[in-house]
């Protein structure tokens, strides 16, 4: 807990807050100021917009602890504000609201528009309102209400002096940050996360997904290794060896009857997920192709992934090399899926494949008894993939030169 002192609607407030409490929850739950509404809680819908040091800000992605010393004005604090009174009248007159959920945020944004942009036309008003979503009105009435107030102000001059704390400041930096005092540390900083002891998940059985819907993501990758197809195929039979080539992956139990259980840690910048799950492998030795079907769960984010990997080996360079083609189809559900942007997932997948191919080559060189061209991985479990991080840069440069023709990156 941290102790903060701030001004809320002109009143001094001192309170102990958890750092993770966002400003809207602090106001609604702690100060009982429920006029600030919460919609999406990730900065998109605008319902929680209020004034921090006189400028509009999102209270759902601003933590209360970061507002120490700041002046907060919510919709309740603008009851007597002359501009807000005009806006309220105009919203009523022009049908600027129906259910009222977006209205507090709309009014705060509208007040910012009419005071900051006294000449805004319809187009500009719409541009400025684009960060506040309304599902009832179709915006026409809201835009009209804002324009009415702009016109009134142009005709009659702006209203009397606004309330203290409701005009924007002139200092640089994020609004609310101008008063920052160093926070006295109270007690040592704790490790918040349990260390990654991913317990075996209660993953659903992963039998053939017959009649399964089309996977959400499909990715095709290929790479070449300088070993004949027979040897690559034999290597693919050693599931533990193959798993060890996958960055961040390891088996949790020894494989049996083409059934494997394991886990994989994937890291993308600050996001990391530990998927644990199991899979079944079907192999067609005659055609040197196979299918891996499975799924896994990231217990931390409670996201799950299900899908299949089809792979096939093709002879290259007169039988001395093998091209491995991989088709991955998967569906991600849960919180991580909300974030999935297909391009980013593709980028991650191509990095994973490239790292996998590189590790595979090293292991196969070693198994073939030749002196490996690359330093051997120091541990059996390959390091997690930290996509794009500099720790990978040396390896990355090699991958790029090795697979430059294939990946064209």
């Amino acid at each position: 807990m941290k102790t903060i002192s701030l001004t809320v609607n002109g009143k001094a407030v001192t309170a102990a807050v958890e750092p993770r409490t966002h400003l809207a929850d602090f106001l609604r739950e702690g100060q009982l100021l429920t006029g600030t509404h919460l919609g999406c809680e990730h900065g998109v819908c605008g319902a929680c917009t209020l004034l921090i040091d006189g400028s509009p800000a999102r209270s759902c992605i601003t933590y209360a602890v970061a507002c120490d010393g700041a002046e907060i004005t919510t919709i309740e604090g603008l009851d007597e504000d002359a501009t807000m009174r005009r806006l309220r009248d105009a919203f009523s007159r022009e049908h600027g609201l129906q259910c009222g959920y977006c209205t507090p945020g709309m009014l705060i944004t509208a007040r910012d528009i009419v005071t900051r942009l006294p000449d805004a036309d319809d187009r500009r008003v719409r541009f400025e309102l684009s960060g506040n979503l309304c599902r009832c009105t179709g915006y026409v009435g809201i835009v009209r209400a804002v324009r009415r107030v702009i016109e009134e102000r142009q005709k009659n001059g702006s209203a009397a002096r606004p309330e203290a704390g409701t005009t924007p400041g002139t200092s640089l930096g994020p609004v609310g940050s101008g008063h920052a005092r160093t926070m006295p540390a109270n007690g040592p900083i704790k490790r918040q996360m349990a260390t990654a002891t991913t317990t075996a998940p209660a993953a659903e059985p992963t039998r053939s997904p017959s009649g399964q819907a089309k996977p959400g993501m499909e990715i095709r990758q290929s790479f070449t290794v300088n070993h004949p197809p027979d040897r690559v195929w034999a290597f693919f039979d050693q599931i533990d060896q193959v798993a060890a080539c996958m960055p961040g992956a390891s088996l949790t139990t020894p494989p049996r009857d083409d059934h494997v259980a394991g886990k994989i840690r994937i890291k993308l910048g600050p996001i990391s997920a530990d998927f644990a799950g199991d899979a079944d492998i079907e192999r067609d030795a005659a055609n040197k192709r196979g299918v891996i079907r499975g799924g896994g769960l990231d217990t931390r984010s409670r996201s799950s992934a299900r899908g299949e990997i089809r792979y096939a080996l093709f002879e290259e360079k007169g039988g001395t090399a093998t091209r491995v083609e991989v088709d991955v189809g998967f569906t991600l559900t849960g919180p991580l899926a909300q974030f999935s942007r297909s391009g980013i997932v593709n980028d991650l997948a191509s990095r994973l494949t490239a790292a996998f191919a590189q590790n595979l080559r090293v292991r196969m060189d070693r198994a073939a008894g030749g002196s490996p061209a690359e330093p051997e991985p120091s541990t059996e479990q390959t390091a997690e993939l930290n996509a794009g991080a500099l720790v990978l840069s040396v390896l990355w440069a090699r991958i790029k030169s090795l697979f430059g023709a294939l990946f064209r990156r």
Partner: protein
Amino acid sequence: MKPAQFDYERPSSVAEALDLLRREDLFVKVLAGGQSLGPMLNLRLVQPDLLVDITGIPELKRAEPDSDGITLGACITNADIEDGRAPDVTGGVLPAIARGIAYRAVRNRGTIGGSLSHADPSADWVSGLAALGAEAIIRGGPQGDSGRRTLPIEDYMVGVFEAALEPGEILEAVRIPRLSARARWGYYKICRKTGEFAHAIGAVLYDPERSVCRAVIGATESTPLVVADAAFLFGDRPSDNLAATYDTAAAARLLDRKGMTDPFERQVHLAALRRAVDRASLQ
């Protein structure tokens, strides 16, 4: 939609911030406005042990123009740039980019350094500052608190959500060159809704007095495609009327080299660059 627990510190100097960032036993994240990190925290996609809020550090909120350009501290906000509180040395280029970022309520807290370090491929500053030829000034590292190194912006983003920061380093400022009066600039962002993540970004800078001709195709699936010498996109003869000699086929070859094969992706990215070129052209 509530974040997992984290600790919070608000240091008052870069040295104090670096001390916290050197903690190897903790997952430490810098908070520089939190307009991208906040959503990720609320969605529990990111679960740090400690947030280091650097917005209380005065030296990260400076805006220092000189004859060659301007140094903007990492915690200068998009609204500071939009409103001109941070002086403009680019003839309106920076305020125009800033105004197109997300929404006003977000711009009031979102910072230039935070956006660059978050390294989202769709972010405006990643592409816009690369086109302007800006540089990242990084503090800390092996030389300790006073250590400094400089990187071109296009080298600062190394991958999706990954900036070129070593442990114990922090982005201190961005250095933006002053454009000459003759400079021509075009920027075009394709999004489905105002303020949303860009689907494609095109940017062109032609500043003959400084012998600069740069182009960027951004909002790709990873780092933007930055062309430091873009004269070949204009038949090696760039002029004030850039559109007259613009060679779409040469731009398409850039996409080939980047490995962008999806026809729709190619189309929107080429359209964004084409429209940026049109905007930059004197007609």
